[in-house]
């Protein structure tokens, strides 16, 4: 983050700091199956975000009293590397990452057929190697591909994308400065097949109209993310 706030986040001709149009996403790259020891894994690059997701299980759950007799327990850990941001991040879970872990779990759980794997745990680990705003969305996107890579039965993939308000404009997929100096941020996760929303948050202020616009834009972003998720899985498992 620069010491001083940039004078304006959106130029006169309506372009953003990195030259994007308001409804344009950052370049997105997804790769499935990047880790050998994990049952499923994925790597995501969204702008300068670098995220690895790993899935283990369904496997035995300890302690026993935490097992659910009728379904699997999904556990999610979102973690940022100490070197993922400009100022060294103190390692380990903090208030923010505990919250993100909880809601990412709740964003993915509706897509998983947990009832097919009773008395087990599905462990999802998301490691942020480099953060550039929108890591929770990129983390959910990566985790969903990793779950598919693990061969766990699912209703649909989960795609996630954020929208924000910057200099009074509603923009898609805010980057670092826009997130830091912008007015609002709306992360959204959905199952694109039925359009079911599994995560929706808002940080900052927006009018109801702006909020509706932001949700619409974020949904559009999810469609783009979804296409890239499909491409990643097809690349790995499509052609024999």
């Amino acid at each position: 983050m620069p010491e001083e706030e940039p004078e304006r986040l959106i130029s006169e001709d309506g372009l953003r700091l990195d030259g994007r149009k308001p409804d344009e996403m950052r370049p997105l790259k997804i790769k499935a199956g990047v880790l050998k020891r994990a049952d499923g894994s994925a790597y995501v690059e969204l702008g300068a975000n670098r995220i690895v997701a790993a899935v283990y299980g369904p496997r035995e759950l300890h302690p026993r009293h935490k097992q659910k007799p009728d379904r699997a327990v999904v556990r999610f850990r979102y973690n940022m590397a100490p070197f993922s941001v400009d100022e060294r991040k103190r390692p380990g879970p903090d208030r923010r990452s505990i919250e993100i872990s909880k809601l990412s779990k709740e964003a993915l759980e509706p897509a998983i057929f947990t009832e097919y794997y009773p008395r087990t745990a599905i462990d999802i680990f998301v490691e942020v190697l480099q953060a550039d705003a929108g890591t929770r969305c990129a983390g959910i996107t990566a985790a969903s591909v990793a779950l598919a890579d693990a061969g766990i039965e699912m209703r649909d993939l989960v795609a996630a994308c954020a929208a924000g308000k910057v200099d009074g404009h509603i923009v898609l997929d805010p980057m670092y400065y826009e997130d830091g100096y912008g007015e609002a941020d709306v992360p959204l996760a959905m199952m694109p097949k039925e359009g079911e929303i599994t995560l929706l948050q808002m940080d900052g202020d927006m009018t109801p109209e702006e909020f509706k616009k932001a949700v619409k834009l974020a949904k559009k972003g999810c469609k783009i993310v979804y296409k890239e998720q499909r491409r990643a899985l097809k690349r790995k498992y499509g052609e024999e």
Partner: protein
Amino acid sequence: MEPGKFVLPGDKITLAEAFYPGPGTYEDNGIVRAAVTGVVEVDLENREVRVKPTVDTPPKLREGVPIIGRVQTVKDQVVLVRIDFAHDRTDREPAASGVGGIHISRVRDAYVEDLADEFQPGDIVRAKVISVKTPIQLSTMGEEYGVILAYCSRCRSELERIKGRKLRCPACGHTETRKVAAGYLREA
């Protein structure tokens, strides 16, 4: 709906009116969709569509699946085995938690006088799942099932098979009996 088509979780395969949802698929609102990544298979005889996974899927316990585990306890009527591997896969943990029981009547195709002559705690056992409803039921009926590695009850050395169901300890010479599987790992 085309056989051999590559599908991802959530992809529409066909209408539920036309086909039953088979393994790897699910029905939602009258539509049969894929639940795993793979290729579509159509069974016209049973009017069922399936998805044959191209991804590695979790080793699930089902009836008839072979498992490998370690004997925890030997009781009067039942032997408790902690299930470590299913489907002979050592690279991925089974998608199940816990222990299975081998009832004295399911140990072998003959009368069993005393379970302690068939299993001892610590033995490594290959068995077959006969019921996945908890408590999980296992069976060692059949040649290929039974103890694949046993330990001496005096000195804990690995026992060697002499002949049939007779095992001998190479360290202390103690002899014991087991329900020995065809693939027992140490031959004298």
